């Protein structure tokens, strides 16, 4: 784009501090665990020690007799209604009734006067289990005769996504070059700093209130109602400040939420639950570990002709959002490269491990790891430059992919070139000293998905008589900056400053229903809704101001907290005076509403065909590493990324999002691994589940990210997502960098020093055998 679209903006496009930053930085933001209510009790959950067992009997009498214990609940205290994230896979219960399916599965809950007592009470609850054979490996679980994790899932297949577009067999036959590679990825946890926390209250007239750290309060609202067997209207979910989520448990109703409200019902008091971090790391909610087989056929000049991807995901004991997870992996295999013929067979398998679901990037990073690693292998075999092969296959704006994605803006070529430029790729590639290497990796994401069920977002804007704006949506700020960018959008439309806009946290009693924060939908979907709501409010204000000033509404401009006619200086009024005049003289309230639902198109999740999102975004990056040849330790010494996130409405926020996603992926690639042995998590601790620290990253001058700016017409003021795409190419980039540095090609994550060292030994052995 020749000119920067942000030059037209007055508020948008400026780096804007997060609205609640000072509140948080001074310790005054109230998270769920910070809330204390009069008479509040403390809850603790009893968890299964067995990976698979029948619950024979629960005797809680000794626990109930412990002084300070006020109530105990078990699975049979709930109505035995299963709930879940997808209609066809509702397999969650608030507490297990007959069967526990993984170590950590919740069995009972206690409310007591303090945490110490609640913990002691758990020791006194006697549960008689009949251990059942368990299965931990998905391929073993698919075999006939394997223990069945769920009765209605033969072969333990929890979900599958199978599609075929075009004709891969013919395309393979026509390919000049075909190769197949296998990849394996590990279990990765969200790793947010705030453990799950909630306070439940069931009052004496049947209203259930849950204060909780949730990214999708309305999902929780519906699931709570279903699992409790009550009407959603009797449930109120109040979103507290969210201390990080990255999907997982904060996206849905958890056993703690159900138990908090039911224990409140039994005791007449509010009940608070907070997970210990070891509990957070032990329970389900994590990224799907996968085995991926990718077969790719190309022309001699490296054009992708066909891809056949088969994957088996270790889904764990429950479904969560797994059905969608499988679809999404294959769907996004269609980006950012053109693949005319594509076959995808994905199986999510139940095992007696903690269950998996969404986690920043969802199933896309794993697929990008496989695909972009293989692309490098193909390029090497065909004698093509790694950037050349990517350009050759790059999706272009206006494309329609094999699975029906209609691509709007997609500046992928520019992203590749920007990275090449900033990283010094062409100067470095092949010229770095031994054991130092640079690797490239690409990926993509989308801006909100059209899921089945409720996908739309709504916003309400009220302009108050002091000229400030009350902005209400059902979307949550979870730290990503939604509060700020949505306020900025409203401010831009209404001609005020972002600080004039107050952003409400979600309360299902008063905010509009909304899917919540996930899938990078908020800036896009809710942003569009906010824009529409603000435009409606502006229209109303223009009418009022026009009447007041005897002007034409169409002539009026909103800027600098004023409404004026640029061609007539006499026609000027402050925004707040217009509101007041309208309120006091005309009795009008300025209230605009907007909804954005991204159209009527739907994806046919059975065939996999359909335009999943209104916008897609490419990501490219290069990583430079230095490997210690005697220990295998990797130091990440440089990172350069470029993303087309449309028009960055808050560059300060976009920077935080892309860098944050990048660092999460670095952890995923090198350090993180939730190790399970026979269903037991061995490292449920931040000491042993290792996430990147400040010393694991390149220095500032070598850690850079660029925005390739486009104007996405579907997005609010041209914007697209920035929180997830940036992490998708990093895994392959690191794998490719390590290969460049050492000649060790790793296809399994994490890429640990141990694996690199054994790879180095093999490489040295091969070299030794080659040299005469």
């Amino acid at each position, binding site marked *: 784009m020749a000119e920067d679209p942000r030059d037209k903006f007055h508020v948008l496009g400026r780096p804007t501090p997060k609205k609640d930053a000072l509140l948080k930085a001074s310790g005054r933001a109230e998270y769920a665990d910070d809330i204390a209510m009069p008479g509040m009790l403390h809850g603790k959950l009893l968890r299964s020690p067995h990976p698979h067992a029948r619950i024979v009997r629960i005797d809680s009498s000794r626990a109930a007799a412990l002084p300070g214990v006020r109530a105990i609940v078990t699975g049979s205290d709930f109505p035995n209604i299963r709930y879940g994230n997808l209609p066809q896979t509702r397999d969650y219960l608030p507490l297990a009734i007959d069967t526990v399916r993984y170590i950590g599965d919740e069995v009972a809950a206690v409310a007591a006067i303090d945490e110490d007592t609640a913990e002691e009470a758990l020791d006194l609850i006697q549960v008689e289990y009949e251990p059942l054979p368990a299965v931990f490996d998905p391929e073993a679980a698919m075999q006939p005769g394997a223990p069945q994790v769920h009765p209605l899932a033969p072969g333990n297949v929890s979900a599958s996504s199978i599609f075929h577009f075009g004709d891969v067999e013919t395309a393979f036959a026509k390919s000049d070059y075909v190769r197949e590679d296998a990849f394996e990825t590990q279990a990765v946890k969200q790793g947010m700093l705030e453990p799950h926390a909630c306070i439940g209250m069931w009052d004496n007239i049947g209203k259930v209130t849950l204060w909780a750290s949730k990214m999708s309060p309305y999902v929780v609202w519906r699931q709570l109602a279903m699992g409790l067997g009550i009407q959603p209207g009797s449930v109120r979910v109040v979103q507290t400040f969210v201390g990080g989520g990255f999907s997982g448990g904060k996206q849905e109703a958890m056993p703690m939420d159900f138990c908090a409200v039911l224990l409140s019902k039994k005791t007449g008091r509010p009940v608070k639950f907070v997970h210990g971090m070891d509990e957070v790391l032990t329970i389900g909610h994590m990224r799907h570990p996968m085995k991926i087989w990718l077969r790719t056929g190309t022309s001699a000049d490296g054009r992708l002709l066909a891809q056949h991807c088969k994957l088996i995901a270790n889904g764990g004991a429950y479904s969560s959002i797994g059905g969608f997870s499988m679809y999404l992996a294959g769907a996004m295999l269609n980006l950012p490269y053109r693949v005319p013929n594509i076959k995808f067979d994905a199986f999510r398998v139940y095992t007696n491990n903690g269950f998996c679901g969404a986690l920043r990037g969802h199933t896309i990073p794993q697929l990008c790891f496989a695909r972009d690693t293989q692309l490098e292998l193909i390029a090497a075999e065909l004698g093509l430059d790694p950037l050349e092969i990517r350009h050759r296959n790059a999706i272009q704006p206006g494309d329609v992919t094999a699975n029906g994605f209609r691509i709007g803006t997609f500046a992928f070529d520019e992203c590749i070139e920007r990275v090449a430029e900033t990283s010094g790729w062409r100067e470095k590639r092949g010229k770095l000293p031994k054991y130092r290497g640079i690797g490239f990796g690409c990926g993509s994401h989308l801006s909100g998905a059209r899921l089945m069920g409720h996908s739309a977002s709504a916003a309400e804007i009220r302009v108050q008589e002091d000229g400030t704006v009350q902005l209400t949506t059902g979307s949550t700020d979870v730290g990503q900056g939604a509060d700020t960018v949505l306020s900025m959008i409203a401010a831009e439309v209404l001609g005020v400053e972002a600080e004039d806009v107050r952003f409400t946290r979600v309360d299902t009693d008063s905010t509009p229903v909304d899917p919540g924060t996930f899938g990078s939908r908020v800036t896009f979907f809710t942003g569009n809704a906010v824009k529409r709501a603000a435009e409606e409010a502006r229209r109303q204000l223009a009418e009022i101001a026009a009447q007041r000033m005897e002007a034409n509404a169409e002539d009026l401009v909103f800027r600098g907290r004023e409404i004026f006619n640029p061609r007539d200086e006499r026609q000027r009024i402050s925004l707040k005076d217009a509101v007041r005049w309208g309120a006091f003289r005309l009795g009008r309230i300025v209230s605009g509403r907007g909804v954005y639902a991204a159209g009527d198109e739907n994806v046919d999740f059975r065939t996999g065909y359909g335009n999943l999102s209104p916008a897609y975004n490419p990501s490219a990056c290069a990583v430079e590493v230095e490997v210690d040849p005697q220990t295998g330790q990797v130091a990440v010494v440089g990172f350069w990324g470029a993303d087309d996130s449309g028009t960055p409405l808050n560059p300060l926020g976009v920077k935080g999002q892309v860098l944050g996603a990048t660092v999460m992926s670095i952890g995923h690639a090198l350090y993180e691994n939730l190790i399970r042995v026979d269903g037991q998590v061995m490292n449920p601790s931040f000491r042993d589940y290792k996430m990147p620290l400040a*010393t694991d990253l390149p220095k500032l001058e070598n850690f850079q990210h660029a925005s390739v700016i486009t104007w996405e017409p579907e997005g609010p003021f041209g914007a697209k997502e920035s929180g997830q795409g940036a992490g998708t190419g990093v895994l392959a980039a690191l794998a490719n960098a390590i290969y460049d540095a050492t000649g060790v090609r790793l296809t399994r994550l994490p890429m640990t020093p141990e694996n690199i060292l054994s790879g180095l030994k093999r490489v040295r052995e091969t070299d030794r055998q080659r040299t005469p």
Partner: protein
Amino acid sequence: MAKGRFAQRGSIVKDLMTVSLRVNGILHEVAIRPWRTLLEVLRETLALTGTKRSCGEGQCGACTVLIDGRAVNSCLYLAAEAQGKDIVTIEGPVGGDPALEQIQRSFATKGAVQCGFCTPGMVMITKSLLAENPRPSEDEIRAALVGHLCRCTGYVQIVEAIQDAARELAPKGSY
């Protein structure tokens, strides 16, 4: 052994003990159980919830407070051990603390705060760092942060915020 309301040195007191804690300049006399950590007393007895409860193991730094000017994980420190010591938490002294406030401002303006859960700990270690080393190099800043986990920011904007705070707090032009 002498018993009494006050936890005298050398006396063994069963169950509740009285401890005097000077927190943010204010002296609190609290009756607590000996096995309460400083974090628990700050949050649950004194309602100073700015200091966060997270990993409970001294890995994440969300519970960092200053004890006699030194950064300490309050989740691994008994409240009883803090008797007679000067404790500073994120809430800061009642009269205000210009250095603390500058650090908080820098964190806000540089985008160092996303979900905010690591932020109080980050601010406290920054205060401790800059008090001891007013002109830290980038490496020194990163080294100071190893006891702190952030999952949201990737640390870049946090490092930039600390550099900004150092610049603002240092005599003009010296950093």
